[in-house]
């Protein structure tokens, strides 16, 4: 699903990622662990080009999205991302946060198709071979209604339907992060990238967020998680990458990595955190 080939990223003279090659298959839950400054977050942020890679390629569904000529926005729709700092839109209510992207992009696509149809119709008047029109079976109202229904369904799922019309500033960290997760889910992504989803949370709120992530994992969502929660990585992940100094040093199942680490650096890191 995502093939990363020799990915490098530097900030000026500082080389953060020093050639990463890894392939993530559909349905995999990949946990990335490693000491701070090892490039885990940078690597994750390169996967949806939040940071533009310096060199190398990221093949997502057969397209190299690291190529600057590619319209990255089209591919980001299918890659959800959850941030450490939640990043809910402060000027929108909870339900607006969830609905914004599906509604805007839905209407945008609808308008583009209408525009194209207009030109095809115009062209068909003058040319003999008639081009078929794009099929449009939705309306603005339908897009909005669908998005609202979907948003309410997702809110119900996390038990926060009564918070639909409040602003994010009134929510707890755990609530914010769960809403950030369903905001990503509302786009029906093929993969979700989690950037230390629980690191900014109070300890008693970590559980509720991890529970939600665990549920998604059980439903078969492909995910890549940068995390410091070793217990969680061990339990949920199907594969663990250990990164240090801009490289992947170990890539194995959680059982192997946690009980029988091969690389001395992995051993040293795990002995410190476990």
């Amino acid at each position: 699903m995502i093939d990363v080939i020799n990915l490098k990223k530097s900030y000026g003279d500082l080389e953060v990622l020093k050639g990463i090659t890894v392939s993530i298959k559909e349905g995999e839950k990949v946990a990335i662990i490693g000491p701070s400054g090892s490039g885990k977050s940078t690597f994750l942020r390169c996967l949806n080009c939040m940071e533009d890679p310096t060199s190398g390629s990221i093949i997502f569904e057969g397209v190299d999205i690291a190529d600057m000529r590619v319209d990255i926005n089209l591919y980001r729709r299918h890659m959800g991302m959850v941030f450490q700092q939640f990043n809910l839109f402060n000027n929108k209510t909870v339900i607006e946060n969830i609905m914004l992207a599906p509604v805007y992009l839905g209407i945008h696509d609808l308008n583009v198709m209408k525009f194209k149809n207009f030109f095809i119709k115009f062209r068909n008047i003058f040319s003999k071979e008639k081009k078929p029109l794009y099929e449009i079976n939705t309306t603005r109202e339908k897009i909005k209604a669908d998005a609202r229904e979907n948003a309410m369904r997702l809110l119900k799922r996390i038990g926060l339907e009564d918070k639909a019309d409040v602003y994010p500033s009134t929510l707890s960290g755990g609530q914010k992060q769960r809403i950030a997760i369903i905001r990503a889910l509302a786009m029906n992504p093929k993969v979700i990238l989690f950037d230390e989803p629980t690191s900014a949370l109070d300890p008693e709120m970590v559980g509720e967020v991890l529970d939600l992530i665990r549920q998604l994992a059980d439903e078969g969502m492909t995910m890549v998680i940068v995390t410091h929660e070793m217990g969680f990585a061990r339990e949920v992940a199907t594969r663990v990458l250990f990164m240090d100094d801009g490289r992947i040093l170990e890539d194995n199942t959680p059982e192997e990595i946690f009980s029988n680490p091969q690389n001395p650096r992995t051993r040293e890191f795990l002995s410190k955190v476990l």
Partner: protein
Amino acid sequence: MGNFDRKLIKFWEIFYNNKGYIKVLEGLKNTLYIAILGLVIGIIIGTLIATVKVMPKYKKLPRILNAICDFYVGLFRGTPVVVQLLVAYYVVLPLLGINLSALTVCVLVFGLNSGAYVSEIMRSGIMSVDHGQMEAGRALGLSYRVTMLKIVIPQAVKNILPTLGNEFIALIKETSVVSFVGAADLYVAFSYIGTNSYEFMVPYLAMALIYIALVMIIASLIKVMERRLRKSDRRN
């Protein structure tokens, strides 16, 4: 104080009996017209410039646009507004061979002038919004432009509203120089009354009071707006 009474009566004579108030209303209308339209133009230009300035700059086009914006801001912040008015009216228009009314020129000049100032205000507003907001929008597949318009700029405007109010108040007061190019504002109206009554104390006092009243009304309007925009904050 008998002297003051006499002055008051003289003023009233011209102001009321000789229909001086029509000129005053006309001047007030022009003052507000220039200030409000100027601010609207200023906000539009300022937002565009600020957006260009905070754009990532590894492509060529943003860099060229940035240079143009820097030049523009330097030009309009580097000269007094009176000079800009005079140059626009007596140099630029004749050179271009366009005929515009003094009032239109004033609106354009004040708009362009405040655009330069608003751009910096707006830029500080945009930079005060957490970068994560932009990232969250982009991560959902929204473009830079859409995220800017729907997420970042609304929050930026909320943060800079007091400063923007300052700019509007400054603009209202600065319009008192438009008589340099022959536009009729409050100053023109009251000096007309003064000239006709041979008495300047009361008209200019009245002018000052009108400016103060205007500014106080605007300040309270800004307060109301601010309170409405703050509804997404916890404390309201």
